[in-house]
């Protein structure tokens, strides 16, 4: 074990060749089971990724099982899915009977309920992942079931839209802090003191994106336009199409790039503001690193005609570990077992809203 140590606290030891048999058999079994195997596939992937990730002098272990995830999803289907289907029929019946106001009110209530559930789901997914992650036989978790976080998620995101969305960074920072402060590993609680300062510059750039796109378009396409002035009508029409397409593409690309720049900064700042007892964390991925990751993803998918999708979770995990740092020390004799509830029902809720990351 000691021979695995390096300067960096986190290190990824996996290789895609080693992961490939897992990825391909997962794909095969997921197809032949009409998707039901994906819960077991997720568990296998995580077990591999966790077990190839070293923290200080020992590897992580993913203790969650496919059956847990499956049970979580089945539970969500019965507790949330079926009532939602019934609710949908009720709304139709109300509309059919001319009770549009009641249907509208119920629809609004339904929307709020789902929004709340999404918040609860995000919280519980993190809680579940910590509770099923072991390091030296010690796991994490949370005492908090996340219901109150769902309420915060609802109102903070709502307030975030005030003033043309200028409060969005505040809501993101505040929700990150609230979520992580409720989490723990072993006997220690995480702390998160993220701040909005330093994020507003990049966030305000998002508002300038359309103008930047226009300027960019002008600079790139002016020569083309001038050149086509000498051509015939058909040529002019063709150039118009090219200019239009390039404009749309450029607008999306520039806007995406600015959002990415904001997110990269946000993520670095938040991880740096998060700590666990004697440990502080850091994250070093720049906008360029994120861009390279996503362009790499796109290229991988493109050149493998889509099959490359099965390697995305591997790539993203490796990316995360590569850029994640920890500073400080761990007193292993004080790092005792977590007293938080053991979780055995998976993150069905998060899965149900299609937000599972890895």
């Amino acid at each position: 074990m000691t021979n695995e140590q390096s300067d960096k606290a986190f290190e990824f030891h996996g290789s895609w060749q080693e992961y490939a048999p897992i990825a391909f058999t997962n794909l095969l079994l997921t197809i032949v089971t009409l998707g039901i195997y994906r819960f077991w596939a997720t568990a296998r992937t995580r077990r591999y990724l966790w077990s190839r990730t070293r923290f200080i002098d020992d590897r992580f272990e993913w203790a969650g099982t496919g059956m847990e995830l499956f049970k979580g999803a089945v539970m969500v289907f019965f507790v949330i899915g079926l009532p939602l289907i019934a609710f949908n029929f009720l709304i139709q019946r109300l509309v059919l009977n001319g009770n549009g106001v009641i249907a509208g009110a119920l629809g609004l209530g339904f929307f709020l309920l789902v929004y709340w559930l999404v918040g609860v789901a995000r919280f519980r997914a993190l809680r579940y992942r910590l509770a099923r992650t072991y390091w030296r036989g010690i796991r994490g978790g949370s005492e908090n079931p996340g219901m109150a976080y769902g309420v915060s998620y609802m109102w903070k995101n709502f307030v975030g839209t005030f003033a043309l969305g200028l409060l969005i960074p505040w809501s993101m920072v505040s929700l990150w802090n609230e979520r992580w402060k409720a989490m723990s590993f072993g006997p220690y609680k995480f702390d998160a003191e993220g701040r909005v300062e330093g994020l507003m510059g990049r966030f305000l750039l998002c508002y300038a994106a359309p103008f930047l796109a226009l300027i960019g378009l002008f600079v790139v396409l002016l020569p083309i336009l001038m050149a086509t002035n000498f051509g015939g009508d058909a040529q002019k029409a063709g150039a118009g199409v090219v200019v239009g397409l390039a404009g749309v593409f450029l607008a999306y690309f520039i806007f995406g790039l600015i959002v990415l720049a904001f997110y990269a900064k946000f993520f670095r700042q938040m991880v740096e503001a998060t700590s666990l007892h004697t440990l502080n964390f850091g994250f070093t991925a720049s906008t360029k690193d994120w861009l390279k990751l996503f362009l790499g993803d796109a290229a991988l998918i493109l050149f493998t005609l889509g099959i490359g999708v099965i390697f995305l979770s591997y790539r993203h995990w490796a990316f995360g570990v590569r850029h994640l740092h920890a500073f400080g020390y761990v007193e292993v004799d004080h790092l005792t077992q977590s007293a938080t509830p053991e979780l055995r029902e998976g993150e069905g809720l998060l899965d149900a809203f299609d937000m599972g990351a890895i």
Partner: protein
Amino acid sequence: MEDGAAAELFDGQSAIRHPVTLHWQDGGLAIARAEGAMEVIPAAVLTFNEHRGDRLVYGHRERAGWRLLVPADAAPALLARLPQGGKYGGWIDRFGLVRASVVLAVISAAAVAAVMTAPSWLGPMVPESWERQIGSALVGDLDKFACSTPESDAALAALVRQVDDGKTPVTVQLAKIDMVNAVALPGGRILIFDKLVQEAKSPDEVAGVLAHEVGHVRKRHVMQALLRQFGLSILLSGANSDIGGTLGGLATMGYSREAEREADAYSRMQLARSDISPAATAAFFGRLRKLDPTAGNKQLSYLASHPDTAEREQAFKAAVKRDEAYRPALTPAQFQALRQACAKDKDAEEWSLGWGS
């Protein structure tokens, strides 16, 4: 050989690493700590957790976090008696990957086939009384929108007689709804919207549309559509984790194109049986093509507009026989009674979404 197989132990209480030596003895695996403490763990409580490259990791069924890390190159005699690891999960490991994949693929294909075909054979098997109950639960009370005068009821009954050959009764009502449409609802209920009657150029046209809706009822399409949507949503919940999307699919419940064609064929057959010309219905489709009667009411799945209006227009046109002695579906007096029903029936409520007037 067995004595002194070095390993590492985390006891699940703290993160301290304990160097241990292992050997098998009566009663289980003897784990001796460097400081002298010794414990014998029965083989039955040990679990295989994972293969971590150079080490094998074992757990304890009753102690969360208890981990025994054994070098992968330890003595085979020691490893052989430890629990062995699965790779893909219980059943698949037992059958082997290839065999399990083939079996699962066959089962999945059968499940897809069952879900795809079940509505068409299962739908007609659902007793009509059940469908009526499901229908009243799903649809609720629509009587308050029904326009009824003694004359219009008689006219409607005359119309139904000509286009329905079923044994069990269908409930046909004229509804005060300001849309050019008619719907077949679960439970053998048909609503003809007043606007359709008002805009109809002849009673034959109303007969054609009514016969189409009766076709949906008689061919059990309503139940089939319900079953199809329900089956699909169950099936998709395996492959597709997006509940929102599944619900969306459910909300847009409608009849399949085959069902529409079948109902049209039924309509033409009934019109022919009663010597009513399909020409008026063809003309109706021609007009329908030019306006979208359900615009702005997309959330009403039962009212979803039918596809391929041009094709349907052609089919009805082609059904007109040149030398046939057609007679009108209703007498002028009957048709007039039908057209005036909603104006005369003061109890009928105008259907609306419920806000404004």
